[in-house]
């Protein structure tokens, strides 16, 4: 789960990290009220993606009217596919210098990596390309966390010796996001040093491991519903499906992530565009197939559906009967191609054909079939 900036800052504050005074505004009026309380503010779009500044999602306000106007423009705006649900109004900082601080999972090293750079305020990927030596790195032991001398080394490596003490203490606090919240990525960029010498989180990004949400139910309860994500993904989550929305018109259901990804590739290769990724896991039970079909059919762009099921232990005839029932229960009229393999697959294909569903022998053949059928449907 990627937290929004204000959510990430609440978490950082709970770890003892200083954040600027700020208020969430859901309406332009609330933004004007935030100005009355905080004075000059930055009105910031809350979306879980980078690049919102360039997209016009951050505006400075020097009066209540400006704050109201900025919020009017930003709330509801679309930034990289996310509709802005609310803005965060934050007191402007008296910036002395900007630093970069963050951690992420280094997949190659199978470890967490802490990164610190005196070059804050720009994207770390850009810094890594232009001046890789300006980023100091530390792989903390995952059981005990970073030790004092390791942090001292990190701070000196980043040539930030003059603020070594407050910085080391802050890094230690940020690191707590790993053991306390199962954070996978955290970024404070910029980490602002004010002219009076305070060290404050100017921006914040935080991603919590979805696999660990059972340990952090309070986060899900507090923040889970704020963002209006893709409506199909939201519905799929309610039905416990692994679903990702894509921008095509052919619905895809597969069992297993790799097979499902492979099916998307086949459809694209056959000249079609997948509308989604939907992994129903092992077994391919009738009820799960019906749930998946129901979510896919919510999307009006969908012109046809391809189901690709590899049955290891599951019987083909059972899968076929389940698909027929699901289609009938949902009163589905669109073209449907089902490719399945496993025990009793011939019998399964017969059942499908008897009920007007196109069977496919291989994934590639099935992909070509559904692309053909949806194209024919479009011109008919």
């Amino acid at each position, binding site marked *: 789960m990627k937290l929004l900036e204000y959510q990430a800052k609440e978490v950082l504050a709970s770890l003892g990290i200083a954040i600027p005074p700020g208020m969430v505004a859901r309406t332009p009026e609330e933004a004007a009220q935030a100005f009355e309380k905080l004075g000059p503010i930055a009105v910031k779009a809350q979306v879980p993606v980078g690049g919102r500044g360039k997209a016009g999602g951050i505006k400075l306000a020097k009066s209540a009217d400006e704050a109201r106007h900025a919020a009017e423009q930003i709330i509801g705006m679309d930034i990289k596919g996310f509709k802005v649900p609310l803005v965060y109004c934050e007191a402007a900082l008296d910036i002395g210098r900007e630093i970069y601080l963050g951690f992420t999972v280094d997949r190659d090293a*199978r470890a967490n990596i802490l990164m610190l750079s005196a070059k804050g305020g720009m994207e770390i990927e850009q810094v890594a390309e232009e001046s890789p030596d300006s980023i100091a790195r530390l792989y903390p032991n995952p059981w005990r966390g970073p030790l004092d001398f390791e942090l001292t080394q990190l701070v000196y490596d980043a040539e930030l010796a003059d603020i070594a003490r407050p910085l080391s203490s802050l890094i230690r606090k940020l690191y707590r996001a790993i053991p306390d919240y199962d954070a996978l990525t955290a970024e404070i960029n910029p980490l602002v040093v004010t002219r009076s010498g305070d060290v404050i989180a100017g921006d914040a990004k935080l991603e919590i491991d979805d696999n660990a949400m059972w340990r952090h139910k309070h986060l899900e309860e507090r923040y889970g519903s704020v963002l209006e994500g893709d409506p199909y993904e939201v519905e799929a989550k309610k039905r416990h499906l692994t679903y*990702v929305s894509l921008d095509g018109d052919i619905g895809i259901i597969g069992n297993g992530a790799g097979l499902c*990804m492979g099916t998307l*590739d086949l459809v694209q290769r056959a000249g079609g565009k997948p509308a989604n*990724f939907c992994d129903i896991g092992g077994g391919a039970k009738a009820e799960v197939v019906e749930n998946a079909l129901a979510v896919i059919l919510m999307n009006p762009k969908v012109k046809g559906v391809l189901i690709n099921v590899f049955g290891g232990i599951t019987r083909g005839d059972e899968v076929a009967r389940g698909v027929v029932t699901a289609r009938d229960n949902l009163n589905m009229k669109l073209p449907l191609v089902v490719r399945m393999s496993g*025990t009793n697959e011939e019998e399964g294909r017969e059942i499908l054909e008897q009920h007007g569903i196109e069977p496919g022998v291989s994934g590639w053949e099935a992909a070509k079939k559904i692309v053909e059928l949806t194209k024919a449907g479009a011109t008919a």
Partner: protein
Amino acid sequence: MSILLDRDTKVIVQGITGREGGFHTEQMQSLGTNVVGGTSPGKGGTTHLGVPVFNTVADAVQETGATATGIFVPAPFAADAIMEAAAAGITLIVCITEGIPIQDMIRVKDFLRGYPQARLIGANCPGLITPGQAKIGIIPQRITSSGHVGLVSRSGTLTYEVASALSAAGMGQSTIVGIGGDPVLGLTFRDVVELFEKDHDTTHLVLIGEIGGSDEEHAAELLAKGTRLKAVAFISGRTAPEGKRMGHAGAIISGNRGTAKSKEEAFHKAGVQVAETTDDIVGMLS
């Protein structure tokens, strides 16, 4: 004719009395796997599926001399189960469990540094099978056959698909290893390719990768140094968008890293054939 596992390997199952653990233990037994026991805290001293149940892995190892384990315990307990197995002296740990928190796995990987003889496969994987001899995990034996193709993959069903096609074409497998779909894993593609390289009954290699991370690239680097195996690679997720997790926790493109294109190019550069679809693999291998 195998790596890691054969009919003599003494195997235990952690979570043997659970629904999944029990079901798959029976499947493993029906293939002839030498299952010598299982663990389930509180049920030590009983018998399940014809083998003794122990409270802890250490007890099981002491009594049975087991060297391998299959882990079928729920995600909140799986990291501890892996470490318990390593500490008890198990050398082949296969963790099937899906959904283990990534930070748990990072701590596990650090813990395993203290047990260099312990090899971990997974988690979030279908396990491994040496056709006709033994398996640990959930790969259906029906679709496999004994032979000389080494198969290694990050995916479950896609592996079955390929194994099934190979078997149908008369190309049996030496060992099939599912390394798992998580971002922080035990054995990597590179580790498994090295093992196949040393196994002289393996003459062919099929590697099934997917988007995310750079484990495929590292395996390609190794193969580029020269190999006696006739190899074919396949990468799924060419059409996956950036920044979205495609089912597997590890299947995510971050910025321009982890793309199918980068992986395919790495194999091309290494002189390894890259299949466009899984249907093409059999033809390219023969």
